């Protein structure tokens, strides 16, 4: 881990205490594991810190870790253009209450990513100004990228025009 990233991680630990659950490093990529409730605050912290301002939210997406206690992981990629540094934030939520605070107020670029994660996985981003489905029809009742959704869909859930 570079000294810059190390300093950032230490600053995160100091600012968020036990809401930062851990830090992983793999081939130079640093991932900070955080409580779901802290995600929006961490995003604001990363954007506004003077040391290395992360001015680009590259991606927001969800992963279905089927059959694990906290089933849905939500991951964020941030990039500091000037320092050319990337950091990843990961959080996990329970299947029964898949709610994560929206970071759209900090990074408007996350608006569509959060809508996609909501559409495909059913993650509810609290505070999102317009959390609608982005791909599937609005009256679709399922979240098709979940592991327990059948590959060929559920018959009758999507309508076709009459022949």
């Amino acid at each position, binding site marked *: 881990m570079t000294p810059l990233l190390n300093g950032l991680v230490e600053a995160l630990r100091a600012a968020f205490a036990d809401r930062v659950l851990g830090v992983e490093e793999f081939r130079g990529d640093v991932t900070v594991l955080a409580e779901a409730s802290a995600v929006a605050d961490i995003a604001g912290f990363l954007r506004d810190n003077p040391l290395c301002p992360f001015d680009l939210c590259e991606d927001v997406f969800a992963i279905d870790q089927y059959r694990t206690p906290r089933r849905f992981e939500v991951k964020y990629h941030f990039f500091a253009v000037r320092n050319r540094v990337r950091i990843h934030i990961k959080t996990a939520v329970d299947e029964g209450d898949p709610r994560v605070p929206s970071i759209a107020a900090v990074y408007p670029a996350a608006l569509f990513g959060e809508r996609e994660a909501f559409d495909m996985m059913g993650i509810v981003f609290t505070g999102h100004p317009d959390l609608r489905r982005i791909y599937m029809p609005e*009256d679709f009742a399922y979240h098709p990228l979940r592991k327990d959704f059948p*590959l*060929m869909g559920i018959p009758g859930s999507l309508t076709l025009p*009459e022949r």
Partner: protein
Amino acid sequence: MGLESIFGEGYLTTRIDALVAWARKNSLWPMPMGISCCAIELMSAGDPRHDISRFGMEVMRFSPRQSDVMIVAGTVTYKMAHVIRKIYDQMAEPRWVIAMGACASSGGMFRSYSVVQGIDQFIPVDVYVAGCPPRPENLFHGLLELRKKVGKSSVLDLPDLPPAREKRSDQPGNGKGRGFA
């Protein structure tokens, strides 16, 4: 006109069916319904090297109201199916459909919840063109097969008008104030 010199002062006998079919098959105006990668091959079909106009009947019309044959070129999702049906419904009779490529014909490699497994589930298809994507020559083959089919048609063939539709129950909305009573 050149015809006078051929026939001289004489005349020609034929059947109205043959005459109409001859006129129809030689003026198939396609409507490109380009949805994904097959549309790129469809564009290649129009370039000087392949030259779809060599058959003298390729006036691509970008309006369904002016065209006879819809070439559905690409992967059709359930969301897009409604759009295609709406455009197809705007085409004047008689009308034909070519399903270009594996996706339009059968869903292709997309065995997935979002992709319609063949457009014949919601519109009648006259010619299926195999390939992923089909080369322009393959599309021309399909076009010529359709031409043969149209040449055998009769003016007495009943148009495939949809049956009188019941009020849709599977669509959202309260059904008030829309469409014809």
